Each structure stands twice: as C-alpha cells, then as structure tokens.
C-alpha cells in the first residue's frame, strides 16, 4: 500500500565542514513524527554527484528517481531540509495539501530575497515574474506523483545549465535550488498552495523566538534553524531535541 514519504538529504560537504553535525537531531524528530503519522522516512546519505559537480541541496530534486529506483510505493512526498525539527504533536501535514504543490513563503531578510529574485530573473529567467510574497522557502516542500515530470525538468535544466547556475550561486550567494525552483513553479504554472509560517519557521532569530525558553516550540510545528551561525544551530537543535524528549 502506498504511503506518504518524508525525504531528507543528509550529506556532509567539504565546503561546509561540521554543518551536518546536528542533522541527527532533525532525523530523530522526523522518525518519531513519521511513526505517529504512519509515514515513511527516507534519508539520502550517499551522493549521486560529487560535491564539486552538485551540492547537497540540489540532491533534493532527485527524490522521485530515488524512490522509484528503491521500489518505494509512495503517495505524497514531503521534502525537508536536515536543519529542521518537527514538533511531535504536529498534525498530519499531508492532510492539508489538497493534492497541490505546497510550501511556505520565504520570511526573513527581504534584501536577500529580493536580490535572489532580481538576480536570477536578470540572468536566467528574464520573462518570468515571481512576486516577493509568493517566493517560497525550499526547506519544506510538499509534492506528489503528478510533480514527477516537473522535477525531471528542473534536473535536466541543472544538468544543461550547470556552469551558469554554479556561477550565479558563487557570484551572488542568494540560494542554490531555491531560486530556480521558484522560477520553475511560475514558468510551468504549477498550482501552489501557501502554508502558514508555522509549517516552516525560518529565520527565527529575526522573529526573536530563538531563545533558551524555546519560545518557537509554543508557536508552531516545523522549526527551521537557518540564518544563524553553525555553533548556535548545533546548540539550539540539540536543546530542542532534548526538551521535546524525542
């Protein structure tokens, strides 16, 4: 019987040593939540392409190929970054999707976000407009079988335009898979449902809830420990995992 899948890429990177240190806390939380909600957790730990050819984030796009080649019978897929922790009491997110591609708006620095949109539009998607309030964070994405071709298109786009993409990544440093995915959703007219902030609580420091009282755990469900230094990420993810008794 087909199941809903949670997919996490857990790959270390030479360019970001130690970055993956707290990923186990993330995986533990998702394991626990999947058990309660009758989902299957699929963690990618082996590279498809070497780091100098494709960084870890881009590996998220191979989710359908990997599930198919592993013989996993799946229904909906939740692709989450390994720097997220889910609250054990979070409701079943798969029940909220209406069978659409779902994500949470990107929240945080509009300087970073607008540069990301404007720079990629100028250099790669001159005819596509992505309004800033539709631009989503790719750390929590829900999709399903009907998006398989869409993901294949993006992979092909990467493989064909890799040099340009890597150049843009390195020149501007305003995202890897995220800007491309956003422009592709627009370009391909993918029906997209926007979830509330509580389902991908990004840049929590800016919202002043990343504290020792773990205020964020009282306000939402998926905690995304981004936009902070590595040592703070390690500390907060460890503390969250311990406090939530995962």
């Amino acid at each position, binding site marked *: 019987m087909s199941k809903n899948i949670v997919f996490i890429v857990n790959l270390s990177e030479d360019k970001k040593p130690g970055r993956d240190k707290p990923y186990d806390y993330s995986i533990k939380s998702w394991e626990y939540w999947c058990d309660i909600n009758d989902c299957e957790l699929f963690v990618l730990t082996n590279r498809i392409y070497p780091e100098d050819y494709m960084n870890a984030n881009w590996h998220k796009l191979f989710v359908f190929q990997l599930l198919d080649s592993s013989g996993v019978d799946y229904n909906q897929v939740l692709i989450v970054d390994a720097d997220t922790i889910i609250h054990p009491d979070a409701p079943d997110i798969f029940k909220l999707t209406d069978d659409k591609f779902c994500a949470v708006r990107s929240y*945080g*620095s*509009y300087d970073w976000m607008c540069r990301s949109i404007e720079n990629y539009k100028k250099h790669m998607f001159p005819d596509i407009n992505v309004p*800033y309030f539709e631009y989503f964070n790719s750390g929590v994405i829900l999709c399903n079988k009907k998006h398989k071709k869409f993901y294949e298109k993006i992979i092909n786009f990467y493989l064909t335009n890799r040099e340009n993409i890597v150049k843009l990544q390195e020149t501007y440093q305003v995202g890897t898979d995220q800007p491309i995915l956003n422009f592709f959703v627009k370009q391909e007219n993918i029906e997209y449902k926007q979830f509330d902030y509580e389902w991908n609580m990004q840049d929590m420091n800016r919202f002043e*809830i990343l504290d020792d009282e773990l205020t964020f755990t009282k306000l939402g469900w998926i905690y995304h420990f981004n936009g902070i230094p590595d040592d703070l990420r390690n500390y907060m993810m460890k503390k969250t995992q311990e406090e939530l008794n995962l």
Partner: protein
Amino acid sequence: MKKNVLFWIGVKSKSDLMLKKHGQFEYLEISKLSWKYWCDKNNVIFYEYKESSESDTGKHRVTWTRWFDVFNQLNQSNIQYNKIAVIDGHNIVRWDTPNFFNLTNGKITAFRSLENLKWLYQAVQGYKKLFNNYEFDTTKYISTGFQIFDKDHEKFLLELKNFYYENNQKILELQKTVHRGTDQTPYNYLLQIKNIKVDSLPAPYLLTHLNRFDWFKYNWQLNEDKTPYFIKYGYIWAFSGFDRTLRNDLMKQVWDSVKHKYE
C-alpha cells in the same frame, strides 16, 4: 451619495509620556500629505481623527478611543459612508497605490502580525487571564494599525468599548505590567471570542518593521536601481518596530526622496 472614508489617526497627545516618545509628532504631517493625495486621487473622504472623546489621552490611549470614536464621529459629522479604513498616522501611502477598498469583501480587513513573535507570545500570555484563559490562536493575531470596516462592524466596536470600560482598571494595570502594547491584544482576543471573520489584502498593502526585515536596502549586487525595496515593492509603509524617537527623522528622509511624486 455614500463614499468610502479614510479615518486617519492624527491625534497629538499632550501627555508628557507620549510627547517624549513621539517628539512633536512632526511625522503626522508627512503621513497626512500622502494620504490626502491618495484620497483625492481615489475619490475617498479623508477624515482626520484629531480629537479623542477622552480628554486624558495619557490614561485612555488614542489607540483605544479611536475604536470608540470612529463611527460616532462620522455619524456626528453627517458623513454618508460606505466602507471605512482606519489607519495609524505613522504610515506613508505610495502615490500609485491601487484603491484597496475595491479588494474588500464585507469582512473586517486586516493584516496578520508576523514580526516580533516573542512580543506577540508574551502579549497573548499576559492577557490570557483577563479572558478566562481563552485558548487564543496565535496564527490569527492581527495588527490593529490598518483595518477596513463597514457598517456591520459597528456592533463589534461597541462591544469592545463596553469591555474596555467595564474592565478599565484591570486593562490599565495590564498595560503597565505586561508592557505589551495597549489595544491590540485585547482587541485580538475579542475578535476570536466573538468569532468575527477577518480577511486580508495582498502583502504589499502593508509593510511593517522595515528595518527588521531589511526593506530599506536596495539591490547592491546588480547596482542598477538604487530604489529601496520598500518603495519598489510596497504600497503602504508603516514606520514601526524601531525606536520611536527616530520616526520623525526617518519619515522626513523618505518623504524628501518621494514627495515630487505626489505633486
């Protein structure tokens, strides 16, 4: 013929505390200029709320009394209104902002408050007892700084007024001890308790905490257009979320850079 009204909050409190916080309220003049221009352009009545029904504005804050006075003052002025937008005087509206009244649908129109969430959490906790430990949904917490009403909402504002005066001592005490705003959190509790339907406008119709979210910056990498993001992408700019003593200066700088658009 009935028209839509922009009920603009321009009361200059004479209390020492408020004068200290807001300087001489020079920023109000800037906000007023922008809104008068917008109202003229969109055939909307500009109504300046400059006198509170309570003389002691240090005790009974304008943030509260505006809700008690809005319908009363419009009725007393014999204004035939359709919809009413109530907006704080620390906002500037962009010259070409579309007529947002056309986007409303009979529900209260407001924006989710998603900025300093710790402040919000503490505010909700701080007022919980006053509302018999009501289970408040923080995902529905709105900013009261810009809302659109129609005649049907007069009843809710009357209930708010009754609640305020019936619980005045407790509310004034909580304002001092919880120290998380004035009207906004009790207003939100009552909205949820009374099950009042709220809808929103697209995000560009209210940008808040401009500094927190880096709205003042521009694309320094392409370096082709130095227009700050908030001017480029936002329609209504709320100068909030920072030290209020900076407000006069900041709004003046912005106004000086865009005022030619309003001529």
